[in-house]
């Protein structure tokens, strides 16, 4: 991004007359708006897609009216409705925490969008610690969730928030452990470099580089589902038990922020899986037939579809089963896989 701004300043006499900090500031504002817009588009599209997919799986039609065909304008209309709704705060709620909780949940997701490369070098912030940054900021979201649960002063919300906290903190571990294997083989945390390392055909994708990484990919996918509270791990907002979990007391704009963050997280975990395991923007052939972003978005949308497909297939786990899956199954497996990757690198150096 810095190079792009520098190049722009070089070519424009108007920008050269301004101090360089102003140009940088304008670029920051511009790119943050790009990230917000991209996130909103993703979330609106995914909500619509989820409704359509679930409808078809359950032999329904889903939204059909708004927008004329396929109900495509249903989610923008819903968003508009949420924006115009009255902003209610419960009388006994902690007003300050109640108000900033959705902003924190939203920000945690938004920050990850900054570091995800859409194509070769097409990234807002080309961070050297890319994957580490994404893991770090995405786990900030749980603060917003537990804050919302606590500040609502409602038992449903509090239960949802507590469940979210235990679940997300637990599943951070297998997520990180399964991604470390890829980082070891790639030798870098930089997401663009990791993507470049998978060029040249499907056999160069890290998922197929080693049997340990294949298993790590599956572990990542399962644990990431739990980290963003998707079915079968959607205990924090289990409708049948907790009304709506941590966002029970939220309405209007603030609820929209939680909702937006939740569906944008779908994009984030799929994008991380694609960059780390499924060859990022590279095609599965040795030649790049279509532009990189098309490959990237195609793979991400496929994974999002798989997540939705899973949601409408599996029932919800119990809380003890959830913890069992994490601590007794996924964490030992990901540890063994990590050692396996190390042994493989030691036995076959340079492969």
């Amino acid at each position, binding site marked *: 991004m810095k190079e792009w701004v520098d190049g722009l300043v070089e070519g424009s006499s108007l920008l050269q007359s301004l101090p360089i900090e102003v140009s940088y500031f304008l670029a920051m504002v511009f790119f943050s708006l790009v990230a917000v817009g991209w996130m909103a588009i993703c979330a609106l599209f995914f909500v619509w897609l989820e409704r359509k997919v679930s409808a078809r799986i359950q*032999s329904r*039609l889903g939204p059909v009216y708004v927008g004329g065909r396929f109900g495509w304008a249903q989610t923008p209309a819903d968003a508009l409705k949420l924006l115009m709704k009255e902003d209610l705060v419960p009388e006994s709620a902690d007003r300050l925490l109640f108000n900033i909780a959705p902003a924190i949940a939203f920000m945690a997701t938004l920050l990850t969008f900054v570091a995800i490369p859409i194509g070769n070098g097409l990234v807002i912030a080309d961070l050297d610690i890319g994957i580490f940054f994404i893991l770090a900021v995405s786990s900030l979201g749980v603060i917003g969730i537990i804050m919302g649960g606590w500040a609502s002063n409602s038992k449903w919300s509090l239960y949802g928030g507590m469940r979210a906290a235990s679940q997300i903190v637990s599943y951070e571990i297998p997520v990180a452990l399964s991604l470390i294997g890829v980082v070891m083989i790639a030798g870098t945390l930089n997401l663009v470099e990791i993507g470049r390392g998978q060029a040249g055909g499907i056999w160069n994708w890290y998922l197929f580089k080693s049997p340990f990484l294949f298993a790590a990919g599956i572990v990542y996918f399962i644990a990431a589902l739990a980290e963003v509270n998707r079915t079968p791990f959607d205990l924090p907002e289990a409708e049948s038990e907790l009304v709506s979990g941590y966002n029970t007391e939220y309405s209007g704009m603030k609820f929209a922020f939680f909702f937006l963050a939740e569906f944008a997280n779908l994009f984030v975990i799929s994008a991380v899986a694609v960059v780390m395991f499924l060859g990022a923007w590279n095609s599965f052939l040795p030649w790049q037939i279509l532009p990189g972003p098309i490959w990237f978005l195609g793979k991400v949308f496929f994974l999002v579809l798989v997540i939705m497909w*899973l949601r*409408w297939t*599996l029932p919800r786990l119990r809380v003890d089963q959830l913890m069992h899956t994490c601590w007794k199954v996924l964490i030992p497996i990901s540890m063994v896989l990590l050692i396996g990757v190390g042994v493989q690198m030691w036995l076959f150096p340079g492969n």
Partner: protein
Amino acid sequence: MKVPSPRLRWYERIYLWEIARGMVVTMRHMIRNLFRQREMPTVQWPEEPKHLPVRIKGRHRLTVREDGSPKCVACYMCATACPARCIHIEAEESPEPTIEKVPKAFDIDMLRCVFCGYCVEACPEDAIRMDTGEVSIVSDNRDDFIFHMDFLLRGSGEEWKKKRGRPEPVEEDEDLSSPPDTPEETRDGYRRRERPPVPSSW
């Protein structure tokens, strides 16, 4: 009762294979519904008419004699049988010498009615029936749900014949088990009508 849970085999305890099998089932449904969506059992009500059984208990109507006067003799049998107490009758003297009473008012509070059909069973004169086939009674005003006698009498006869697609049974000894000239009767007793075309955009 204790239901023993089945012992899982080792490959079932890994769950991944079983999850994949479950996903195949849902994907089969999804693909079938995407490409053959006319066969989906979902009815887009109220745009598409719902296919109700011919003999469903709909809202009430009051039948009439051949001269157009109500058959009801204000005997209060229906009001007595009604478990929801939704029938309100006021009687007056009949002008006909052979009939003792006629209703001055006959109101049914549809908000209280439970569609049990006891009133129909109780009526000795076949004056009240629930064969209109109307089950969606909609209004935004409570007063509209109190159906008065003139409304309940309206349309007795010709209008229902057209609406129900079969001649109105007026004879007392009518054989209800086999409704005459029913176009397409299937073996489950439900009449299947031609579904209106679903717009392709669905």
